[in-house]
């Protein structure tokens, strides 16, 4: 099959960017979208043109490194699927595909289709952990955790940190990412000691970098792990409580 690509090319954060048009012919339906880009890059190198820079690594949908906008949809048209697992059979022969980087103020552009998502690491630093030094843990079976709780915590923990939720959001908000991280830990008994400080810190760091959530729900649809926006509700509820509880705890001390 054959596709026409319009790819965003930009040499660096300060350089001007523009779409460039490429035609990729004789590709197989069994190929993944990124393998199609590999072939295009191979052709570009042979022609003496610099290959398109794009982030990718595991190519099995779990590392969260890859991700581009394809025709305005983060990770392309297939629900619950990261760019690396999207296959060309999902497109029509002769289709035109517009390929862009994540567009969000919180993700400054690095080059071509690569953006800087380190703001996510800053949010985690703010409390995306349970403070337990190595060696100080009690026996793993000491605290039974109901299966449903553990399963729901897993649903949140499945987040791969790709940033599609931010790219999908009209406001460039990172609420789904932050809520997934907070909910994973806040649901578990181990996470209770730091529940309120974690929630307040992480939400406020998030707001330094990203826009505000106005409940569009685009993030859930874009998420390659189909993480539910219910977690955003949980985060918001915990944030309001945290505002009271954190003060009360301070007042008691």
């Amino acid at each position: 099959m054959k596709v026409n690509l319009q790819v965003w090319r930009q040499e660096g954060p300060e350089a001007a960017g523009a779409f460039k048009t490429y035609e990729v012919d004789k590709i197989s339906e069994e190929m993944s979208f990124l393998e199609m880009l590999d072939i295009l890059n191979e052709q570009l190198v042979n022609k003496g043109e610099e290959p398109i820079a794009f982030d990718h690594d595991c190519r099995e949908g779990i590392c969260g490194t890859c991700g581009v906008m394809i025709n305005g949809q983060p990770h392309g048209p297939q629900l619950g699927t990261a760019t690396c697992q999207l296959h060309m059979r999902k497109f029509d022969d002769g289709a035109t595909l517009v390929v862009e980087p994540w567009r969000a103020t919180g993700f400054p552009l690095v080059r071509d289709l690569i953006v800087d998502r380190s703001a996510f690491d800053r949010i985690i630093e703010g409390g995306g952990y349970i403070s337990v030094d190595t060696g100080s843990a009690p026996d793993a079976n000491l605290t039974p955790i109901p299966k449903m709780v553990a399963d729901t915590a897993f649903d949140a923990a499945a987040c791969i940190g790709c940033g599609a939720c931010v790219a999908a959001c009209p406001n460039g908000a990172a609420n789904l990412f932050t809520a997934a991280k907070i909910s994973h830990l806040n649901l578990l008994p181990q996470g209770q000691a730091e529940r309120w400080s974690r929630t307040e810190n992480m939400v406020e760091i998030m707001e330094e970098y990203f826009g505000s959530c106005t409940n569009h729900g685009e993030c859930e649809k874009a998420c390659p792990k189909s993480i539910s926006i219910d977690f955003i509700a949980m985060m918001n509820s915990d944030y309001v409580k945290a505002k009271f509880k954190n003060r009360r705890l301070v007042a008691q001390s």
Partner: protein
Amino acid sequence: MSLALDSKVPAGPIADKWENHKFNVRLVNPANKRKFRIIIVGSGLAGASAASTLGELGYEVDLFTFHDTPRRAHSIAAQGGINAAKNYHNDGDSVYRLFYDTVKGGDFRSREANVHRLAEVSLNIIDQATAQGVPFAREYGGLLDNRSFGGAQVSRTFYARGATGQQLLLGAYSALMRQVETGKVKLHTRSEMLDIVTKDGRAVGVVVRDLVDGTVSSHSAHAVVLATGGYSNVFYLSTNAMASNVTAAWRAHRRGAAFANPCFTQIHPTCIPASDEFQSKLTLMSESLRNDGRIWVPKNPDETRTAGQIPQEDRDYYLERIYPAFGNLVPRDVASRASKRMVDSGRGVGPLKNGVYLDFASAIDRDGRPAIEDRYSNLFEMYNRITDEDPYSEPMRIYPAPHYTMGGLWVDYNLMTTVPGLYAIGEANFSDHGANRLGASALMQGLADGYFVLPYTIGDYLADYLNTDPVPADDPAFTEVERDVSDRVNGYLSANGTRSVDWFHKELGKIMLDQCGMSRSEPGLQKALSDIPALHEEFRSDIRVLGSGESLNQSLERAQRVDDFFELAQAMCVDALDREESCGGHFREEHQTDEGEALRDDENHSYVSAWEWTGDAGAPELNKESLEFEYVHLTTRSYK
């Protein structure tokens, strides 16, 4: 032999060695720990767990990763689980049994003392991960669930759906980020280590390249830890992530660290077969699928019916037939070779006849579809996304693919390489898996090294350097290496050849897969040893890397990685030639039983091959560490 390989295994009964060693190694007192700088390269399970633990202890840590965030490391892709001898299921497991299984599963080519220690600390890992909030699978009573895994007859594998590696890595990453927040660990992302710096025979720092702006810089420390993973990507097509590479370990090797057992590579039995020549990588399907899936091929090589139409009597469930005791759960090397024999005999399935069936029909009949969904739904979805086939209604097609490398930098019991002050942990070292790794043991080893072994042993080395400053980063030792690194980078850019990096990588991969993959022979290896240097020569003169060294340049990154793969590939072939026996993942066609099973030669090859760099990649020098088996008696592995 010019290296004195002292394994430093402590004396005493095996169950007491680690306990005694922990007491005997020197400690650094808490107030002095902040005076030591430690560089860690790599942020996977081993690197992140080591960095967080050393930070908690009070050391000053610099962590380098070429990823944009530490959470991307390839540990994240491990699906199946992590072993621990908790015996929560009362089925006869114990530390000793895990130790025994791992030594036997490794086909008697690992160091007993290291393996016993691994089994001991496996208990702590599960406790630690659970306390961090890793959402392991649980039973309805709220306690942790376990399953059995390839090569084991007890249920000792803890898991988190099909994403155990992800959840454990996120646990280690969260602990790491907590230390980043306190300032004890300094994080350097998109920074690739390109060389080790030594002075007076000791490791004193690293030279790294900033992948965004191309700056080459030096960083010094009292000790350097490599947690840089394995080298399966030497085969081009493997289940490893695209960026996984051997460069850090190989550069250390060139600076004096012995490289052990490079030919011990593992071919994972359950991966999705390649669909066309443009395939960039292979996708693994967790081995846990073998608990419920039955592997078969049609009896007739000319079979044309679809899987569902083939009646039971025309199917060959060959693992159940050949290995009745273990059936579909035989260890990876055994399962992989059996599949290869089936495909080689023309009985492969799928459009390219390059796979075998993994069939869940019996399990769905027995346990019901909901039970199977609960266990494997995310794996089934992944399979469906890649192949567009539905494994609930038709069998999966699988075939072995390079997956893990047991070989790696030689380390002693303290995890130190032959270069003082340079440590290797996780998949980057060679120590615990012998010639074959058991399923669910990689996560265990990475975390054991990082959380519970290195933090104890590194103090013993550092104690000698109390109140000394690290060698300054502007010392001539550093500037010289920085110049080497820059010259190398410029070399690729100025070659101005005609072929891309990927072209060379694919060609190298083909040679390695054919001659040094699942089965090896003397003529094949000799041929590889003449083809690889020729291709490498062509690579040097004919490579085309466009763009500049002063900006983000992915072809340039790959060029230096592939360059090192060329040298490693030769070491692998030399090692495979030297090892005149078949053991674990290393199968020499000359050494097999009448039934085609591996034939080990304990008399002559019960040793670790620690290769020393000589300047000629095709002629490294062999040093041997002989292996003694005091507890697990040498037997021929039989899974029948």
